[in-house]
Structure formats: C-alpha cells, structure tokens
C-alpha cells in the first residue's frame, strides 16, 4: 500500500501516490479503520451543508491529505457562473484547506437549471473564451489555482474547430490553471470519436498536468451497431486504460492518481486493490526516473 496516514501531514499537498475517491457507503469504515490510503478526494457538492457529512469530512482531513473535486460549477455555461454556488464552494475550500481543487471541462447549467450531468462543449473559440473567463473567475474567488479535468463524451459537434487536447491546453495556458488528466476519459472519448489516445496524451503540456484520474467504463452497443464506451465508474480500470496510464506516467512523471468508483460501489478493499495497482506503477515510474537521474 502506498502511504501511511501517520506519515502524511494532513491538509498538506497531495502526494504523487494513489488516492481513493471517498463515497458515502465507505464513510464509517474509513473513520473506524483508518485504512492506509495516501489521500482522499471527495465531490465538493456533497459536503456543502453541515451535520454528519461535514463532520466526516473534517475527520478525514485531519488524518489524510484531501482533494476537493467539484461537479457543479458548470464552467462551460454561456452566461455567468452561479455566484452563490461558487461562494459555497469557496467557503468549503476555506474551511477544509484541500491540497487540490478541481472541476470539469463541461457544462451542466442553462437558464438557471442544473441538468445533473457533465455535458459536452463545442470546441469553438467562443466556448474557449467562456471557459477561460469562468476558470479565471473561479481562481480569483477561491484565491488559488484549480485543475480542469478533460471530459468523457458521447457526441461531438460538427461546428467544433479545435481538437479537445488543444482546447484544454489553451485553457491552462491562458488562465494559468492546471490539468487533471483523466486517463479513462481520454480512452473513452478517443474510442467514441475515433481519436488517437496517444496523440491526445502526448499533446498535453507536461508542466500543467498535476493529477490523474482512473476509473472503469462500460461498453454499450447502439441500434446502428456502433459501440460506445460509457464512463460510468462502475467497474475496475480496464487493461487498455492501465497501459495508457503507464504511458501518462512516463510522460508526466509520478502524479497524484485517483481511483474513482461511483456506480455499483464495491467493498472498500476492492478500491484498495485498484489503488495498489496504481501505486505499483507509480513506484515503478519513480524508480525508473530516479535511475535516469543517477
């Protein structure tokens, strides 16, 4: 296992080790058993109130480095960000002092309605301007750099003019944000849209990538016979995604790496096993880069 909580300073930076996305069914076990996990990440929107959930989060952050992952800011919405929601996120960031804060390259809100999914953006200059403006506003309100995660998607728009890897790179360059490289999302989107996953990965700027996500996905056959990969976070990380992850580590170096599992959530030990697999690849890459340096 990677990392001993006793040796990892709480509220500190997120280590280049394998962390786990903490979900409600595992709250009790994590608090009671203090499993050996290098760090935890939670969905910010699930902890905006008080009561039991907030107390769990306070205890977790006392023992483990914590990362906050937002799912609701809707950085790609035309128009203005929800200032009230941003203020609530800012309050959570102030009180939990997370090592990393991240959001998505997507949109979920239009006309004041939240559509409860991470919806795809057209890759246009207009959308790029919108996302950059919203990332800059978010970083100003939170008073810190955030990471933007590359999305998984099932459709793309015929009027898109910018490849997604150039789009997210441009956001990082213009706004100064970092990139959360979701390796499963690259694999899923590349497969769904006929892109080359290696081209995508190799185009991301090494200095900007600061975290990696790994998760499982599913296959679904459409009526026309085509097969889509669905990013449902409901199974182990696929073999091809582990390969792509190894390539990502060679390119970016050892990175904080998160195991996410959101549907059919298994026993916590299953997540520990996934994290151990990521940890082995991380340590292998660390040893290799050390050997090169020597």
């Amino acid at each position, binding site marked *: 296992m990677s990392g001993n909580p006793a040796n990892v300073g709480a509220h500190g930076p997120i280590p280049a080790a394998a962390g786990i996305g903490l979900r409600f069914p595992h709250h009790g076990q994590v608090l009671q058993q203090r499993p050996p996990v290098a760090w935890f990440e939670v969905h910010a*929107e*699930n902890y*905006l*109130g*008080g*009561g*039991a*959930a*907030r*107390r769990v989060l306070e205890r977790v952050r006392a023992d483990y480095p914590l990362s906050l992952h937002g*799912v*609701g*800011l*809707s950085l*790609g*919405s*035309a*128009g203005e960000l*929800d200032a*009230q*929601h941003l203020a*609530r996120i800012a309050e959570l960031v102030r009180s939990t002092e997370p090592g990393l804060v991240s959001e998505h390259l997507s*949109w*979920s*809100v*239009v*006309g*004041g*309605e*939240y*559509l*409860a*999914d991470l*919806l795809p*953006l*057209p890759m*246009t200059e*207009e*959308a790029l301007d*919108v996302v950059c403006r919203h990332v800059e506003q978010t970083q100003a309100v939170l008073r810190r750099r955030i990471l933007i995660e590359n999305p998984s998607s*099932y*459709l793309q*728009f015929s*009027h898109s003019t910018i490849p997604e890897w150039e789009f997210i790179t441009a956001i990082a360059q213009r706004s100064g944000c970092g990139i959360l490289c979701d390796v499963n999302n690259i694999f899923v989107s590349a497969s769904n849209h006929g892109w080359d996953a290696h081209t995508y990965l190799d185009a991301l700027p090494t200095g900007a990538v600061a975290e990696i996500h790994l998760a499982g996905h599913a296959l*679904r056959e*459409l*009526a*026309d016979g085509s097969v*889509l990969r*669905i990013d449902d976070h409901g199974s182990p990380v696929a073999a091809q995604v582990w390969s792509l992850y190894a390539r990502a580590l060679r390119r970016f170096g050892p990175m904080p790496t998160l195991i996410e599992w959101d549907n059919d959530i298994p026993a916590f030990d299953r997540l520990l096993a996934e994290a151990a697999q990521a940890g082995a690849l991380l340590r292998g890459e660390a040893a290799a880069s050390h050997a090169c340096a020597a």
Partner: protein
Amino acid sequence: MPALLELQQSLRAQLLGDAAPEAASAARLAIYRNTCITTLSNVLRLSFPAVQRLVGAEFFAGAAREFIRRYPPASPCLNDYGANLPAFLATFAPASTLAYLPDVARLEWAVSRALHADDAPPLELARLASLPQAAVSQLRFAVHPAVSVLRLQFPADAIWRAVLEQDAAAMAAIDLAAGPIHLLIERDADAVQVRRLNAARWQFAARLCAGEPLYTMVEHAPDVDLAAWLAEHLACGRITGFQLHAPGA
C-alpha cells in the same frame, strides 16, 4: 454555427423538454438524458424513501420523471433538490387516492433539510444575560438552520415511521381522521428528530422560526409561561442568535 447559449438551450430542450432529439445524435443524447434523469431520480428516492414505499418503486419512478421535467433543479447542490415535490404530489392526479401522501412528502422534505442544513453554534446565554430588562421583549431570535415546524392534516409522522420500519401493525393502527398534528423537526448529534408538540407550544415555535419579536408572542399567548418555553429552545441549541426589534420599528 449556433452560439453557445443557443446550443445549450437546444440541448436542454432535448434532454428534459419536449423537443425531439436530432435523429443523427438521438442514441448518443439518450445516454446523457438517462444519466440526468437517473441521477435526479436517485436524489429524490434518497430524500423521499417513505413516499416511494407508499406508492411503489415503479409509480415513484414515473412520478419522479414527470417532476424532473416540470421542476428541474435550480442548484447544483442536489441536497437542495425536491422542495417542490410535496406540492407536485398534491396536484399529481395519479396519486390523488392517497390523500396523506403530500403530508408524508412535506415531512420527508423537512427531515432532509434538517439532515443537510448548515451547522450553527448555539447562542451563548451570557449574551442574553447582559441585555437590559426593557430590551427582552424586543428580542427576535435566529433559529438553527436545521430546525423547522410543520402543521399537517394527516398523522404523517406515524405513517412515516411505520412505513420505514415496515411495521404493518403500527400502520393499521393509524387513525387518518385524528385531526392535525404539530411537528418540530431538528437535528441532534447526527440524527434528525421529529417531535410532536401541542398546538400552543407549536404556535410559539412557529413564531420563533418566523423571526417574530417576543412582544408579539406575548400578545398572542398572554397566559402562558413563555420564558420556560424559550428556555427549552435555548437549552436544545435551537436558537443561534438574536436581534432587537422595537415595537412599531
């Protein structure tokens, strides 16, 4: 080439509205629609477990789909989603045979609010003790965000408990015609408590929650020991602050 806003409005209409999806992308859009509706339905199921048990999973799923189309969430914090479900159920014709269903939904929404409400430290009594006696009647209290009151026509608390505990005997013993109930809902330690009050105490709690100054409460209940009732609310941590409000101000 559609502007971003135009595109997002069009997708919203295809995901939750009546617009037919563009044929070429219908199957792909259906994946997003499915995620959206499944996510929101799960949120409603978690907040309204007794309503779901009363109507059955299939009926609930259908009602939830209709509710989601009519009242999509206004906030990305999904703990806030569902405030309109009780009123929706009251007008949802297929549920009209269960007259008490909207009351059970009102109670479950109050329980959900209590569960997720912000934390707030109780009022320090020393701050009250330092007030001049003449100011006491002008006190207007801030009530803890997890505290709420409900007056319901049906015994929704008994139904709620019997349904969640699957206690058929308790369910059979419920008298739907027993008259209105007066509830105070709050959070203590980690659990939500649903308490029945008598009508007079409930009136007092309701006026507290509405932020009325003490002098109006005295006018409405001149013969009772409001100080003792207030002391109980203070001792339970239900009051978190105060302002002074002079009569006529």
